[in-house]
Structure formats: C-alpha cells, structure tokens
C-alpha cells in the first residue's frame, strides 16, 4: 500500500502529460462553429449572376454545400478546381461571394469555371458576419431543411472532403 502511494505523483504526472500532449495536438485556429445545428441565417441578397433576389429558401430540398469565397482570397484560387470536380460529381454547391467586387467575381467564374448552383453576392459582408465567417475559404454542409451540419475553415480538398465532409453530406442525403 505504501509502495503504491509512492507512485501517486508519477501517475499524476503521466495523466497531466497525456492531457497536455493531446491538447497540443489540437488546432487552436479551429473555431468550434457556433452555428452547427442552427439554420442558415435569414438573408435577402442579390444573385451575383443576374441580381435576382435570393433568400434562405435556397437551401431547401436536399443537402448542399455553401462555399464562402472571394477573388481577393488566394487560397480560394487553389480550392476552385476541386469545387469544379465536386460539382461534376453532382454535389450541389451554393457560393457566397464575400466582400468582393461583383465584376471581378463574375470574370473569375468565366475564367476559371463555375461550380455553383447559385452565387449569393454578400458585398457588405452582412450574411458572412451572421455566419461567423472569419476568413475565406470556408465551406458548410447544409441539410435539406436549411440547417448547418458541418463547417470547414480553409481550403476544401480531396482529403478534407473524403474524410470529413462527405460522410456528413451522404448522411443527410440518405434521409
């Protein structure tokens, strides 16, 4: 008994070291999204393409991705080809053009291809602020009822899609 007590500090040390070690492995930049499980915030914004008014009913009927981008965002350029591949695979993507020049944004879609079903022009960043966007690109999985189910901050690539987003997307697709 006394022997075991001798090792108590060692156990405490090991437990603390394990806790801190796993804490180190977590990405401190990743904000737990406040909006997962909540509906896409209400909005009334024009379409980037033709100015026609859009609102949150856009997200009815089947899950889709909501991709936040901008022509000023370098990482979005890297991400774009993968979005085009996803669209080719039949995944519906709604774009959110975040604080951007609409003319430049339209040219970008002509030059680089257009993976989006529809693009919301959020010129003053109101909707992005309501979504808690703090940089671009960001991509959300929104279910058929307009509820946000997953959020990825940073470039969406093959690996992120396969390992993290696709399972969520497929789950909501199956319902």
């Amino acid at each position, binding site marked *: 008994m006394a022997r075991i007590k001798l090792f108590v500090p060692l156990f405490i040390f090991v437990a603390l070291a394990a806790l801190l070690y796993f804490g180190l492995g977590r990405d*401190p*930049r990743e*904000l*737990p*999204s*406040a*909006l997962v499980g909540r509906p896409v915030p209400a909005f009334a914004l024009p379409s980037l393409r033709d100015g026609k008014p859009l609102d949150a009913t856009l997200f009815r009927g089947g899950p889709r991705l909501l991709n936040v981008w901008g022509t000023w965002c370098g990482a979005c350029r890297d991400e774009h080809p993968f979005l085009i591949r996803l669209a080719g695979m039949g995944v519906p993507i709604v774009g959110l053009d975040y*604080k951007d020049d609409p003319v430049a944004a339209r040219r970008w879609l002509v030059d680089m291809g257009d993976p989006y079903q529809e693009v919301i022009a959020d010129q003053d*960043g109101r909707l992005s*602020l*309501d*979504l*808690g*966007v*703090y*940089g671009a690109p960001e991509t959300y999985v929104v279910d058929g009822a307009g509820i946000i189910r997953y959020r990825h901050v940073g470039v969406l690539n093959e690996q992120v899609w396969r390992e993290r987003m696709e399972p969520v997307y497929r789950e909501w697709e199956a319902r």
Partner: protein
Amino acid sequence: MKVFRKTGARRGRMSLSAMWRVFPVALGLWWSPGAAAIAGQDFAGAAEQERYRVLIEELRCPQCQNQNLAASDAPVAADLRKEVLRLMREGRSDTEIIDFLVDRYGDFVLYRPRWQSATYLLWLGPGALLVVAGLTVVLVVSRQRRAHPTAGLDEAARETLTRLLDETGDNRLDDRR
C-alpha cells in the same frame, strides 16, 4: 503628433524639458493597442468612446491567435469593431453585444470565459489544485511530526554526544547549535 508640430512652429524648436513632458503622452498613445482602432472613429462623447474601448479590448479577434479586436489588423476585426459600435448605437447593452458575437463566433471571442459546465474546471481548477497541494503539505508535515515526536537530540543524547566529541578532541557541536 500634432503636439510636436504646434510647439515646434511657435518656438522654432522644442526645449528638452518640453520634450520630456510630451514623451510619456506620446509613448502612451503609441503603446496602447487600441489607439489606432479608436483613432479612426468619431464618437458621440467620452463615455461612448470609453465603453467602445473596453468592449473591443475584451473581445478576441476570431482570426487571430492572441489579439483582441482593438489590436488586430485583420479585416474581420475591423468589421467586428464596426459592428460593436453599430450595436452600441442601436442601444444594445454590453451583454447583448457580447451575446451577439458569441452567437456567431462562439466562445472563442471571449477573453473572459463564461461560467458554464465546460468551463467549471477552468475556473475552479487552479484553486482546487492549490487547496489539494496545501492539504497535502499539511498532512505530510503533521504525519512526520507524529511519527518522530522527538526529532533531534534529547538532553541525555546531547550530553553523551558532547562527551564523546570532547574525548576525540572535536568540540564544535556547541558552535553548530
């Protein structure tokens, strides 16, 4: 740096003592992280400015690892500063403004974590650790006292020891006492 220019224009050049008087003020302006964030705004009064300063210093920039809204150059921080001021002018309370940001960006934006189930350990942990450590020390010390109630030498032992040391010619025990 208006101060320098005005004084300089009037007197040609600034005296050393004047410079010493201005220096702390200049340093204060330069050093306070929120100075730039505040300088770009028009305020209705000193009270509004002060309230704004306190709020943006207590809220964390979502894009940065360790900067508050006041100190950050990130575009999102500029947007959120604007938003804070807008909400203030809408007549929202501090709590409402903070809730507004937490609703969108999560607890990450709080430099002072809230009292909720996920933060009990954070708030109470250090205190609990201190209490446990203190109790352990008390326990160990008192147990040692009980185990060796007459630690050190009693009178008889001391006399024996002194005599023995005398015999060997080494009598430094008294000096050591």
